[in-house]
């Protein structure tokens, strides 16, 4: 059962990492506009102002 000593903590740490990432995405308001995010990825976001200057 030596394997458990490594595997169980490893599984837990990875899981917690996922949870932390999820909480971060929530905090940075990535779920507020799901429809917008879906189409935003297709935009060519030219930084127009810098171009004109």
């Amino acid at each position, binding site marked *: 059962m030596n394997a458990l000593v490594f595997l*169980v903590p490893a599984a837990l740490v990875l899981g917690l990492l996922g949870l932390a990432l999820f909480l971060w995405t929530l905090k940075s308001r990535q*779920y*507020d506009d799901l429809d917008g995010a879906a189409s935003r990825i297709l935009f060519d976001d030219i930084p127009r102002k810098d171009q004109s200057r």
Partner: protein
Amino acid sequence: MTVAAGLPEGLAPGQAGFSRATCAHCGTALAPGQGEFCCTGCSGAHALVRGLGLDAFYRRQETAAGTLRPPESVSTDFAPHAVPQRDGTMQLELMVSGLTCGACVWLVEQALAAEPDVLKARASLSARRLTIAWRGDAARARDLAGLVARLGFKVAPWSPACLRATEDAEGRALIRALGVAAFGSMNVMLVSVAVWVGSDMEPATRHMMHWLAALIGLPTVLVAGMPFYRSAWDAIRAGRVNMDLAVSIGVIATTLMSLSETLRNGDYTWFDGATSLLALLLAGRVLDRGMRRKARQAVAELLALQEGTVALRLADGTTRGVPAESVRAGDVLLVAAGERLRLDGTAEEAVTLDTSATTGESLPREMAQGEALPAGAVNMGPAFLMTVTAAARDGSLAQLGRLLERAEGARGRFVSIADKAARLYVPVVHVIALATFLGWWLGVGVAWQAALVPAVAALIVTCPCGLAIAVPAVQVAAVGALFRKGVLVASPTALERLATADHAVLDKTGTLTEGRPELIEDETIDPELLREAAAMARASRHPLAQALVRACPEAPALSGVREIPGKGLVRGSLRLGSPAFCGMCDDPGSGMVLVYCVAGEAPVVFRFADRLRGDAGEAVQALQALGLETELLSGDGAGAVEAAAAATGIGPWQARATPADKAHRIESLRADGRHPLMVGDGINDAAALSLAHVSVSPGSGTDLAQAASDVVLRAERLTVLPLAIRVARRAQRLAQQNIAFSLAYNVVAVPLAVLGFVTPLIAAVVMASSSIIVILNALRAGKEVGA
């Protein structure tokens, strides 16, 4: 394509639809020979987009034809809505209507970003909310909002009324709880599965596994269960029993029992059951909330567009746009032609008002000098100065609003089917669980910790899960399907009440009818003359002129048209306006008319009326086919009401009904044990709407009526109402089936649990399978929404 040939090469619009002769900006169908745009607004918008180098928009846009037609002018002053930020920049929040595709978001953001002083412009597609930040003074708000308006989007200030401030925070708390529960349940399951399959496991190893499960499970149950515990606690304090109470007790009891099993190293712990139950229920709740939020947002969007500022006349004779709330009694306002009065007042002159929203009368009324003008009426004549008699919070609208709040309380007593099931379920299950515990402990004589296991197993396999998800799942499917049809279900119990309605009371003006003047088709009028007149009418905001434009949308705008307020329009020798203005001595009859005359020729009379909606008769018949008795209750005169009743075959009708009459009628129907469905759009309907068993208002209705309604029809058609009732009834049937199914499941599962045969594995299978069946059944609610 003679039009395109006449244009320089570079100007040919890159829109695929152009070959079918549609407006290069908004996509409205064009009449032959009308150039490439339907109106000057679109032409300006197109030039603006091209000037910014953003024409990629036209290749990507997915908006419906005609939605992007720029308004004639933006009357609202947005400067008071700009909020200074701590770092010295200004921020403005706008509600943007017409923002329906990703390309629109792109266009708006890029167009604003091209302004040199704009720091940030971010549009949210789901909330239709635009946030602009810039460096400079508040007055820029007007230009920036105007820029968005010139692109063809309707803008309104984002008001706190759009969405409750706590709404976002509540939603995020729910998603966070779901995330924690999902993480917890998956990781507990990892450990639990090892215990289930590892029958040859050493007791010491198993003990460690139990502690691991407890380590993950306890915080998860504590954090993720919060939304349920809170709701259950509220119910207890109010002396009620709800489904959340059953869930809370089940989860907490399971957790405590598992902890006791962990301490004494029993065969199994049940942390997996408690956490996955939470995860599943939270997922249902997040979906349910998301769907309803979408509907509420759409209602808020409709309301925000109606809000706006009033033109306050200052001492020096100029006017300034201010929010209606800031106006006090005694202030003088300038009411433009076609504007809705937001406050009560009096005028120094005789004015013509369309009071259909306040009284239901379809013909405009002449108000004598000094007569009290009710808020909610629309100015049908020229602009006039109005002295405000009551501030917004003391006015007639506010009084009505307070009346509605009291009526809302009465409706809050409605018990939803899920709560009815909970009232039955909670005591029965808890008595069974207690009896099981006592039976094993005292009767069979096992240790109390061991007796706890079958008792709590009975609690958890009775599956508050299937039962708790039975109704929300159906609601999500049905509300979502209706949303796509343009029916916005705003209240959580609206569907159930809609399903049980058995008597429909309809208002006439604005409900059965369009609620705005429309040209009466007349064979004798030459279409060419209509086109000429409509072209002239484009120059005016007068409601009748606008109706003329609607009747002939392809008419081009003309230059050189002069408006003489209160009389009509002049262009050279052409005149369009009131009969007197055009020199007609003989009165062409009552009602709304416009006369068009060319010098030396016989004048042409255009008559207008508030027309019945095209599908009014069909909708009434569909309601009757659904077994609802229908009746018409209107504040309009007997002639118009009788005609509408006869045309739609609605049955009994009553004319000249005051708001109190309407409310009384609804109350007497309720007293007779009927379940009245009220459909109305006006301020005069609001009291009746809030008293009715269930209430519906069209999207064009007044904000007060919409606020008092459970369901708002965003679609122009009235036939979506019978469709909504059909969907609601189907949803109700499915919800009952789901509850019956969950109960039937328990008839098998509970005896097994009581006798101690159920292991956590069996509980998990029972729970998951019943939930899946309930969800699959619920999905049928959204199907077959044809029509």
